[in-house]
């Protein structure tokens, strides 16, 4: 027995050694094609795919702004800049906007890109609206439907005329990629909009677009590879290729950044971020969040059979305001976010620099349990003999608190809040809920199918666009049954919401938004807890020219448009002249090997896999045969 094991292991070692010797020289030649500069980006979000209408996450938006142009782009201060269109004017009555389209543009496959393509793209949305159809996830077409899009015409290859039902501030910032008509018109609206339709157009690579890079390879759930668009009208960045990789494990992504296996990481955890600060060759950037995490109350005004809040108190603004004085928001930022965030105030985050208005000093809340106690008593919520706070029906107040399983750090916030409100005599029962179940629990009777709004308080978050409209919308009365989870209703807020969406004059609009923010802060339908910072990091040893967007408080990538990518230089080079000038496509850009045809990686991965499996089987078979022969020999010896 001893001899057999030794012999067997000897054989295994010999085979392994042989393989190693043969492959050793090959092991060094793993790099991609010589000379290509590849930008590798890591994100913790999963791709929804290449069909822009299905976009849900930031990474999806990032992908379509690399492939395609918006009509109107964003510069380094989030001001409007040229993109597919070079200029735009709005008529006096505010109902017609005329865009001048850049002349001489070509799609990446060489076809001319004109106003026709823009008209085609917008017409898709108009058709969808007419059929009461949602396109995909409803975000992209939503920008145009909320702008009141009525009709679109390409009066000539360089002119696009858009009509809206009312004057609107939302048409120009509409975040809609312009798609190539000659590719997309082969598919019906259903095939473009409905992911479960027969013949759904997934827009698999190679993608045809007018953006600086186009997708040439897509491994779902893993990575997407982009190659330089040879026909790009603008200034090209230094990267010949861009690869965006999905990391399920945040930790692994940071490790990859440290090892130089990726150049950029988005969505780093707080502690990992802190450990990267000051690391040579790595720059960390803490961007302001365009969104916030919040604690909401079930403000449904009526009792609901078999559901609803456990007490009428949560529908009372005075109660909510008092409880908000029992929240130590700076402490939450410190302990939950390790300081990487800003305590919450308004429903518009400070990121929205043009529109954000901090609460006035005399109404600004802070953490003051004594004051909270006073306010509760004054509002009619007194403590009984045993210290429990009673509502106006004489019942001790017990609030359920929950949060979705996908936002696990809120569990820590819940621990704190339970403690603080406990001191006010309010019992909090806290527990996590599956995202799906939570969505069901939140549904009010107005929704289709009707729900029971079975919750008292819960925590989640909102993320915004460049335009503040989407952050305001969940709080209007019309959204009850839709995206509203506070069931709050304020006539003045509704009125202002309608007006601000139609006001093009920014000063006027800001006045309205200021009033809206004040109403919101006073009535506290929800409490913004904090604006969690965006934690990114990147390496400086291969690429330079990293620039934040917006310059103040932004990050280089994953913002609004491909600007960050186009500004990149090879490390050590000086950045070239003014980034916001559009220059002629650089003569030197040549399509790299992967721009057309099937990716080489795919075929070799299958052959390679088969090779390995074959080798293993071969070794196993040989091993068993030899062993058996040995055994037979031993038997013969007897």
């Amino acid at each position, binding site marked *: *027995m001893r001899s057999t094991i030794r012999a067997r292991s000897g054989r295994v070692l010999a085979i392994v050694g042989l393989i190693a010797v043969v492959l050793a020289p090959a092991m060094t030649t793993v790099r991609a094609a010589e000379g290509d500069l590849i930008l590798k980006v890591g994100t913790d979000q999963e791709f929804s795919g290449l069909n822009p209408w299905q976009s849900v996450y930031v990474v999806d938006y990032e992908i379509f702004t690399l492939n395609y142009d918006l009509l109107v782009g964003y510069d380094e201060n989030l001001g409007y800049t040229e993109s597919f269109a070079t200029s735009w004017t709005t008529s006096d009555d505010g109902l017609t906007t005329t865009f001048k389209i850049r002349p001489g543009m070509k799609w990446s496959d060489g076809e001319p890109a004109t106003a026709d393509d823009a008209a085609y793209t917008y017409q898709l949305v108009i058709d969808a609206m007419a059929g*009461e159809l949602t396109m995909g*996830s409803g975000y992209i077409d939503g920008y145009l439907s909320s702008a009141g899009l009525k009709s679109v015409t390409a009066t000539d290859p360089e002119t696009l005329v858009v009509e809206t039902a009312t004057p609107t501030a939302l048409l120009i910032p509409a975040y809609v990629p312009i798609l190539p008509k000659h590719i997309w018109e082969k598919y019906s609206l259903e095939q473009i909009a409905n992911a479960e339709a027969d013949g759904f157009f997934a827009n698999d690579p190679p993608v045809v677009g007018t953006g600086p890079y186009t997708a040439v390879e897509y*491994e779902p*759930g893993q990575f997407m590879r982009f190659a330089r668009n040879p026909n790009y009208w603008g200034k090209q960045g230094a990267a010949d290729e861009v690869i965006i990789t999905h990391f399920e494990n945040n930790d692994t992504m940071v490790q990859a950044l440290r090892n130089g296996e990726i150049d950029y990481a988005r969505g780093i955890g707080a502690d990992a971020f802190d450990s990267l600060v000051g690391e040579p060759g790595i720059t960390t950037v803490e961007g302001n969040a365009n969104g916030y995490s919040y604690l909401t109350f079930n403000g449904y005004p009526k009792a609901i059979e078999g559901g609803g809040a456990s007490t009428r108190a949560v529908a009372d603004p005075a109660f909510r305001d008092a409880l908000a004085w029992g929240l130590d928001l700076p402490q939450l930022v410190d302990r939950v976010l390790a300081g990487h965030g800003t305590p919450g105030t308004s429903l518009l985050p400070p990121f929205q620099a043009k529109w954000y208005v901090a609460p006035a000093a005399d109404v600004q809340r802070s953490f003051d349990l004594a004051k909270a106690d006073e306010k509760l008593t004054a509002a009619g919520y007194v403590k009984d003999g045993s210290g429990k706070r009673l509502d106006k029906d004489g019942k001790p107040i017990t609030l359920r608190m929950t949060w979705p399983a996908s936002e696990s750090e809120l569990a820590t916030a819940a621990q704190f809040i339970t403690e603080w409100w406990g001191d006010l005599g309010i019992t909090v029962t806290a527990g996590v809920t599956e995202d799906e179940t939570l969505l069901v629990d939140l549904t009010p009777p107005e929704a289709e199918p009707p729900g029971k709004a079975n919750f008292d308080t819960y925590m989640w978050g909102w993320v915004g666009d460049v335009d503040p409209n989407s952050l305001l919308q969940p709080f209007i009365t019309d959204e009850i049954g839709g995206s509203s989870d506070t069931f709050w209703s304020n006539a003045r807020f509704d009125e202002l919401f309608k007006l601000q969406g139609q006001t093009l004059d920014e000063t006027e609009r800001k006045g309205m938004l200021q009033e809206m923010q004040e109403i919101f802060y006073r009535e506290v339908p929800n409490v913004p807890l904090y604006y969690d910072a965006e934690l990114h990091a990147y390496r400086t040893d291969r690429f330079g020219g990293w620039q934040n967007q917006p310059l103040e408080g932004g990050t280089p990538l994953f913002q609004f448009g491909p600007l960050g990518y186009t500004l990149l230089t090879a490390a050590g080079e000086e950045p070239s002249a003014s980034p916001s000038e559009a220059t002629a496509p650089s003569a030197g850009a040549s399509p790299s090997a992967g721009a057309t045809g099937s990716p080489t990686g795919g075929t*070799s991965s299958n052959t390679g896999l088969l090779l390995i499996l074959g080798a*293993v089987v071969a070794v196993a078979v040989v091993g068993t045969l030899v062993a058996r022969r040995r055994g037979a020999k031993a038997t013969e010896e007897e």
Partner: protein
Amino acid sequence: MATRFILRRLGQAAVTILLIVIVNFLLFRAMPGSPDRILARNPYVSPQAIQQTRERWGIDRPLIPDQLVRYVGATLQGDLGFSFAQRGRPVTDVIASRLGPTLLLFGLGELLAIWIGLALGAYAGWRRGGPIDLIGNGISLILYSMPYFLLGMILLLIFASTLHWFPTFGMTTIGARFDSPVAYVADLLPHLTLPVATVALGLIGQYSILMRSSIIETLSDEYITTARAKGITEDRILRAHALPNALLPTVSLIAINLGYVVAGAITVEVVFNWPGLGTLTVEALSARDYPVLQGVFLVLSISVVLANLVADMIYGRLDPRVRS
């Protein structure tokens, strides 16, 4: 081999699979979650539009019998629906693309573990009480007591993060392009080593303990004493008599354990970011991608049924008593 035996087992397997399909459906429908949830917190989508979308997706029909029948019918035709997270991609595509890496990792790990584990266990049981037994058994027990992912994390920490002998994650280097299959394999092997080592080590612990028990049991059988009395060498006894008999229960136990081992393999994939079914499961879980989870569940169950079937066949071949 008795045809009736084969047919009977095949029939049983088929019934089991049908049951699994139905249970799969019921389980997932008992879970909240439908594709319209991506529309739920979207301020631009009206309640009417949501209802329209639900109709288009066919999820507004009653659960039983409409949806159940539709589901069973579709599944039997190989249609597992569409992923919630990867919009527009059929679940079958999603799973198929991740099957290869898992088979590779798992297959290699199992092969190594069976080879080494069984040999080690047999030897330990044979020389019971000897130094190999004590050390081997001790190590096996410790390995067996460790959750796979912990083992993986430790190996990762030592060999990848600290010594830098191996890459820390993934199946191949990100963004690398390979000019030939050999280059691909050359990049694959360093990435493969630690995960396979983790799976193999974990399984070796289990299999060697199993084999050891089995050998010890077999050794106390009477025919072994008889064989010794006849003067047959220890070596011969072990290989020709004890091993084959000890192998029987071990083989069937290995097949049964397949279902449990999958759990371990899942967590190993997560630790090493190996793009297989394991990471797919965890990703689908965090994205609440229920059709994919449902699909993975189905695929795994069916493989275990098939593995058991194969084990039964082998067992039947090895042990004539079973076929009667």
